[in-house]
């Protein structure tokens, strides 16, 4: 599966305190449908009707269901064209409550994995030409496209989010200073108002766009992928809150904390963050990350990792400080370091007190495979693509150029590349990234198999 959906708080105190007598992530809705077919164009109508029917059953509106179906048509056609023989493939539709996902899963050895670069062409002399590549076309009508290459094979995931009505004109109740409050999981009504309060009290660069749609935030939390905690006073007034999202098996992204009319010396922000940490302390989550830090982010909880630049459609570009907090004692580790990144890493590891044994590595003319393969996480709403390498290949730089060009044509200004320092062959790619104007921005401890260095394309602000 492409999404971990275990409840974050299955055994925590927060679970007992907060979830025992309030809303538990919604159950009882159908969550999955699957179809096993062959990569044969004869099945195209079946693949399409499967997608459309699941999308509708899982609650997508007609136009959204059609867009997802279109993307699946494009993807399925692409898969059929790129496989030399007819192979078995599984389609899985998932109800994420605030989105519908369709996953194509197939054995990598049966297909040319190169074809699953975001920018790959069906064939070099394909009549559609460079600009019209199946996967890129598919990406245009969905919110997220992800390409994974794992032990199970290649997996392509298309995610179409549901459309929600914007916030109504209801008046947001004036928040008061709360001296006594408890931190609880909000009931649906409180959560809806909480979304309204965030939008009312905070400038829009301090929260994700999704929060402008209260129904969406409610579904995001009900799906179990997101969590929320609010500080409520005696009269059930909400004085503040925090939202979080489990973005991988190891990492949770925290939004906020958001405080409404609370005095600067209030303990509310710290208590909200404590609640999040305590709830996750005994899970497999290794660290929290904050990209939408409000001025209320309590001091002494997070460490600044570095900054990235974000270019948005509807607002000026901004440098965002990324904060992190480890949840476990750092056991220390060994990383592969290319000489061209040594200085950066030494400085960062010293600054952050990370104990790392650095092993030097660089290419020494050894034979490499011909073709590189990238995985991609494509997030449309954020104009962002995050790439990493699945397979090394001598065409790495060309492949990189193709991605930069294609993504540029698509109007995607935020291009990131992850290098996992657990692998010497990935560290060897560093000079190639540096030559293509990728700049190391931050080190995420243990975010991959080992530490990940996040590079951003472009000179920056």
């Amino acid at each position, binding site marked *: 599966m492409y999404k971990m959906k275990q409840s974050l708080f299955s055994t*925590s105190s927060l679970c007992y305190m907060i979830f025992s007598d309030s809303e538990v992530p919604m159950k009882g809705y159908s969550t999955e449908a699957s179809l096993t077919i062959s990569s044969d164009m004869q099945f195209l109508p079946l693949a399409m009707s499967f997608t459309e029917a699941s999308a509708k059953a899982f609650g997508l509106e007609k136009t959204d269901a059609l867009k997802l179906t279109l993307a699946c048509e494009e993807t399925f056609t692409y898969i059929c064209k790129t496989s030399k023989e007819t192979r078995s493939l599984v389609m899985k539709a998932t109800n994420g409550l605030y989105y519908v996902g369709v996953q194509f899963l197939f054995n990598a050895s049966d297909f040319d994995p190169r074809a699953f670069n975001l920018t790959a062409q069906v064939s070099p002399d394909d009549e559609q030409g460079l600009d019209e590549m199946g996967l890129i076309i598919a990406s245009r009508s969905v919110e997220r496209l992800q390409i994974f290459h794992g032990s199970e094979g290649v997996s392509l995931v298309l995610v179409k989010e549901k459309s929600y009505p914007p916030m109504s004109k209801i008046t947001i109740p004036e928040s008061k200073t709360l001296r006594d409050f408890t931190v609880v999981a909000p009931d649906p009504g409180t959560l809806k108002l909480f979304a309204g309060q965030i939008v009312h009290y905070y400038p829009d660069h301090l929260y994700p766009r999704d929060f402008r749609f209260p129904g969406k935030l409610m579904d995001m939390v009900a799906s179990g992928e997101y969590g929320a905690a609010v500080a409520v006073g005696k009269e059930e007034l909400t004085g503040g809150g925090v939202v979080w999202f489990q973005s991988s098996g190891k990492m949770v992204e925290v939004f906020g904390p958001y405080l409404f009319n609370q005095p600067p010396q209030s303990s509310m922000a710290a208590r909200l963050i404590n609640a999040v940490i305590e709830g996750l302390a005994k899970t497999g989550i290794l660290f929290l990350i904050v990209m939408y830090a409000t001025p209320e982010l309590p001091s002494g909880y997070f460490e600044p990792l570095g900054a990235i630049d974000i270019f948005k459609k509807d607002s000026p570009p901004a440098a965002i400080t990324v904060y992190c907090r480890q*949840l476990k004692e750092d056991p220390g580790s060994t990383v592969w370091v290319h000489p061209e990144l040594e200085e950066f890493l030494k400085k960062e590891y010293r600054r952050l007190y990370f104990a790392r044994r650095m092993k030097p590595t660089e290419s020494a003319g050894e034979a490499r495979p011909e073709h590189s393969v990238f995985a991609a996480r494509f997030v449309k709403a954020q104009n962002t693509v995050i790439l990493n390498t699945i397979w090394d290949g001598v065409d790495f730089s060309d492949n990189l150029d193709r991605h930069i060009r294609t993504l540029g044509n698509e109007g995607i200004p935020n291009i990131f590349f992850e290098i996992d320092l657990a692998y010497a062959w990935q560290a060897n790619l560093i000079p190639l990234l540096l030559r293509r104007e990728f700049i190391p921005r931050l080190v995420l401890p243990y975010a991959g198999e080992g530490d990940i260095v996040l590079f951003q394309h472009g000179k920056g602000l």
Partner: protein
Amino acid sequence: MFIVPLDSLVPDYVKTFEAYIPSKPDPELMKLYGCDRLYRLNNNENPLGPPPGAQEIMRRFPPPRAGLYPSGDSYYMRCRLAELYGMDPDQFLFGNGANEVIAFVIKAFCQEGDNIITADKTFAVYEWVATFSGFTAKLIPLKDFGFDDQAMLDAIDERTKILFVCNPNNPTGTYWNEAKLRSFLDTVAGRQIVVIDEAYCEFVEKDDYPDGMKLISEYPNLVVFRTFSKMYGLAGLRIGYLMGSMGVVDVIRRTCVVYSVNTVAQDTALAAIDDIDHIYRTREIVNTEKRYLREELDGLGLETQIGEGCFIMVRLPMSDTLAYRKFMSEGVMIRSMTGFRFPNWIRVSIGRHGAMEAFVEALKKVLSV
């Protein structure tokens, strides 16, 4: 090669359980952190180590005996304890550390759908064993750093089998006095098993601190844990035990692994148990160093939680996991307490004065950069 179908082989409660990764051995850590010394102040070990008589037994251990199995049920140890406490040898069960006897009790009483009750911020192994065995651990928030008796009682339902109370509590050092424990046991009225973990009992000098062992005759549902890892300085040999009424222990014996306590551990513990002097000397160090730490930490204006036991808690104005890394680079290993659900707190085990000074010195550096 076969592919192991882990998805279908592994129960869900194991799939979602996160393994505990212990810290690397000292030489590895010293290499990684580039320090030439390492004060381990993270495991609540006795700074004096084992009592002298016990050390002598270890030294004299005849190697050929390693070729033979130990007594499968720690026979001489049980007889000695029975004599000391006026009980029957069959009221004792030994394990490879108290950690192992936790599992014996849970296996003996819980089946699918059952639950145990304990605190959210206490020694983690009760919660772990229950969770990875497929049982629910109901975690009751501490109240003023102590176990909340009323909330624990309120949480009991028809599927509750065991209530675990850590007395004194690791890490907060709080304890229930005899009146509170008795009233709790009276309310439970024998319906569930009540475990009192007395791993640190030998450190407590308070008059109203209850001796669980003395209450077993009155409360047959009471099970008491003790260990040789803390006061007796035998953590590396792994030996601990439980005791209870005959009927209850007879049931737990069925799920207990025999032969899990090795010969050296049994012989050494037998010598350690009679060394009262060792207890006094250890208490002396612990009390003196706790006083020293309290003064230093007060001087730095830091919030502390100092109760019973050979450890203290300090609240830092910074992330405890960052503090852990900074302390390690100074050659001092403390316990960061996010894992105990105490964000930004650390727990420091009491060591000899040199170690305590090293800790204070490192702390000042950690806070200043």
